[in-house]
């Protein structure tokens, strides 16, 4: 978007100080949260488990929560499909803007994308909780 284009279609604010100030408030808010987390950490540290022992496999080994849905998926569907699927999905996500090119600003398009994203996220969250509990 060029500047001339911007000026005649929308009201604008200068990057500095107006926009920078908003970002500054966001930074301050995040810092406060981070400080509170740190204060909690003074009294309740993250802690450590037993030292690693390659000879001793614990009963319930789980990956980090952001890989848990993949791990859970792999348990119940054929291994190769379960591993190829995410790779293909990742490639699809990466090239998505080259597939969905139509400029569409309608409320309907927003709603359909919202539903797609919501369904995917709910499936992933459900798999994660299942993996965490099961």
């Amino acid at each position, binding site marked *: *978007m060029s*500047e001339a284009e911007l*000026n005649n279609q*929308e*009201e*604008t*604010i*200068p*990057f*500095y100080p*107006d*926009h920078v100030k*908003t*970002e500054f408030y*966001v*930074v301050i808010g*995040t810092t406060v949260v*981070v400080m509170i*987390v*740190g*204060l909690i*950490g*003074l009294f*309740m*540290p*993250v802690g*450590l*488990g037993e*030292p*690693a022992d*390659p000879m*001793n496999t*614990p009963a319930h080994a789980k*990956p*980090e*929560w952001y*890989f848990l849905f993949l*791990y859970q998926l*792999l348990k119940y569907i054929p*291994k*190769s499909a*379960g*591993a*190829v699927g995410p*790779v293909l999905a990742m490639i699809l*996500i*990466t090239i*998505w*803007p*080259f597939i*969905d*090119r*139509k*400029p*569409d*600003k309608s409320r309907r*398009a*927003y709603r359909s*994308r919202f539903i797609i994203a919501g369904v995917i*996220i709910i499936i992933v969250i459900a798999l994660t909780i299942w993996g965490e509990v099961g």
Partner: protein
Amino acid sequence: MKKYYRWRRGIITSILVSVVLLVVITSMAHANSATRAQRESDTPVAPYDWTSINALIAETDDPASSITPPPATDPCLHCHIQGENKGLWTPLTRWALFGSLGLVFVLGVYRSATVWKTRKPWKPFTQRSVEWVDERYEISEPMTKILKKPVPKYATRWFYCLGGITAFLFVVQGVTGIMLAFYYKPTPEAAFASIQFIESQVRFGSAIRMVHHWAANGMIVMCIAHMLRVFIMGAYKPPRELNWVSGVVLLLVTLGFGLTGYLLPWDQTAYWATTVATEIAGALPVVGDLALVFLRMGWNITAVTLGRFYALHILILPILTLVLMLGHFLMIRRQGVAKPL
């Protein structure tokens, strides 16, 4: 002009509040340290006999002993003997407080004298330094152009903050990560003990590790939230395709940070979580074994894996992230943020 003063008042208030907070926090840490137990126990710890070190030196045969003799006049002998030694923070706070007051006083005298001598209004130091730099490098004009660039008003809507929070959490991760790297040792023998040392001995070590741990999780959550926002708003559409691609790569790099960082504490949870996480890559049909060996640097997670993960975590991935983030931001700068409905 009035606005400027309001800003200044806010800044002064926040400085005062943070000084008070610093004093409170440090005294809290002090109160929880081992000296408290000593102070409150029924049998007070006998004050250390400061003069005994002289006897120790006298006993050594070698005159050029490695023990340096104590200063002839201890700057504060009674502090050690009577247990008045308050550690680092009390003198530091005193120096900062009275030193800055002294500087303010000296500056005031200088300012009054200059105004009286030159009969001209006082020019603030900030303005002087700006003029000094601008005289030499002439950056004020391009800087003004950069800073005054008009931004659409909708760019301050709340849902545009998610990417900014992710970027700021990356900065938090950088700062706390550097702090942890001062104490962490990336070998199977020492890693666990060094984390224990950070948690129990280093001042504020457990707080720093807590922040690093939770900001890492928060960064992944914020990444995904930002991605969903961009997807739902259709902000990836032309002309912003490459911004989306670089964002996906940034998400993958963030997950890489998570994978490599989770192994570093070298406890049972970390070891086996990394084992099963890398097994996911091992399930790929043709290249599975190759991917597994590539990720683990062998069939199992060993000292080599730990070293490689550490190097990836603190060198390769941060550099990659910085480069990608620079591109990401420059593209936003050039194209502007996508318009909401």
